[in-house]
């Protein structure tokens, strides 16, 4: 009988691991937004001096890891395991980076929910006593994602009213048993939810029900209400998806209040040409490890529920007319 659980889908870490250090590396468009002051490194050239956007994405990820472990003053070979994932086919950004750094590696795919997926797994390894230090890493890149999931970059295409803009950047968190202020106390593993949205330009509307389901399960499992948290942060629903989520939570009888925010909306507030907000694996990672984690370290936020949302379709599945299955995973960060 598993003892470190509560309710249907929530893990309770018995000795909550801590975030020893975290790092964020952001691209040029992200640096135009209001969150720029919270990033550890901003890169003015989204190609990072590389020939392909895929190579550039790896550089973002590599830098995030190096800054995170550098700030913690550890060497790559002291890290026991790295959980990493990204959006590219066969998660090449993660595996190529893991090869370069020679850290034992477990690849994850959770689309844009990967940041929380990684944090959940890294925390479980540390809490379980299987690792002293575990990394959770994720990255995304506008050009690399655009050409894989949508159209060539220079194509003349008009944005839809629900289009989002993939965040270029990477976030890494180093999880350990001690040595940090912010604890990871619980994690809620979401179910895959598909409400039949087929339009790949409507990621927010497709993912909102998954976010609602996971938040609802989390609150039910832990017996809390939304006010328990200073911040409830979704990953990349965008303005439209966030509005739908608020409505869904009202319908379920647990309305979210002023403490709710969406990373995609925060990322690109006031930045032109970004549609209804940011998306991509790095979206929730940059806001969580940049803004939220740092604010927590400064004692301005004490409890945060991070809900990363992912759309689990592939270009093949939507071209074959399938709807978009979505997931949301949540972790609780407490100061």
């Amino acid at each position, binding site marked *: 009988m598993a003892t470190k659980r509560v309710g249907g889908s929530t893990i309770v870490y018995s000795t909550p691991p801590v975030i020893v250090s975290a790092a964020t590396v952001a691209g040029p468009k992200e640096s135009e937004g209001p969150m720029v002051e919270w990033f550890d490194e901003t890169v003015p050239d989204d190609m990072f001096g590389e*020939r*392909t956007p895929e190579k550039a994405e790896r550089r973002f990820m590599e830098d995030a890891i190096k800054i995170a472990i550098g700030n913690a003053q550890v060497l790559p070979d002291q890290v026991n395991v790295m959980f990493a994932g990204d959006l590219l086919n066969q998660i090449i950004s993660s595996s190529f980076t893991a090869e370069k750094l020679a850290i034992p590696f477990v690849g994850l795919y959770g689309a844009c929910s990967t940041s929380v997926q990684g944090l959940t797994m890294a925390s479980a390894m540390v809490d379980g006593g299987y690792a002293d230090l575990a990394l959770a890493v994720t990255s995304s890149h506008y050009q690399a994602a655009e*050409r894989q999931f949508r*159209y*060539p*970059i*220079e*194509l*003349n*295409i*008009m*944005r*839809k*009213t*629900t289009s989002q803009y993939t965040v270029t950047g990477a976030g890494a968190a180093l999880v350990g048993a001690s040595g940090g202020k912010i604890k990871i106390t619980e994690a809620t593993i979401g179910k895959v939810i598909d*409400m*039949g*949205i087929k339009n790949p330009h*409507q990621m927010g*509307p497709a993912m*909102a*029900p998954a976010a609602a389901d996971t938040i609802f399960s989390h609150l039910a499992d832990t017996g809390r209400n939304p006010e328990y948290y200073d911040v409830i942060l979704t990953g990349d629903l965008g303005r*439209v998806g966030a*509005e*739908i989520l608020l*409505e*869904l939570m009202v319908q379920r009888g647990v309305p979210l209040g002023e403490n709710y925010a969406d990373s995609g909306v925060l990322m690109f507030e006031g930045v032109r*040409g970004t549609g209804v907000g940011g998306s991509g694996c790095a979206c929730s990672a940059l806001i969580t490890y940049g803004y939220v984690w740092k604010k927590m370290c400064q004692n301005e936020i004490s409890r945060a529920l991070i809900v990363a949302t992912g759309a689990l379709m592939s270009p093949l599945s939507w071209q074959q007319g399938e709807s978009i299955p979505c997931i949301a995973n949540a972790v609780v960060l407490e100061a």
Partner: protein
Amino acid sequence: MVSPGAKKQKADERAKYQRLATSIVPKPPLVRNAIVAFVVGGLICMVGQGVMNVFTSRGMSQDEAVAPTLATMILIGAVLTGLSAYHPIGEFAGAGAAIPITGFANTVVAAAMDFKREGYILGMGAKMFIIAGPVLVYGILSGVLVALIRWLYRG
């Protein structure tokens, strides 16, 4: 085995959610889009007419001037795409930038630029027409069908 009742309930839930989503998703600004497409598309056509006038003023007949005019417009579309200037026009004007032949040139060059990284053979050569391909296939097909109808009708 999922019971028919559960299946129906799931379908109802999905339909209900999709109604909710549709009510919240902002509607595209159709009037704005139509006006901008008309104006920008019209401006591109005016440039085309200007190019054609240059050719006819140099002594070409109207018929002779068509091919070099199209070639020039394709060149303009291709160069603008290469300079990353056609994408913003498309983002602003939608069909106004997509329908003229400059837009067709854009689809080919944009794909060529993107897939060049996978090499000239398996990348650019194989995938250059990934967007323009369907236009060619169905353009030629409908041309043949229309010609067939005309032939049957007029003998």
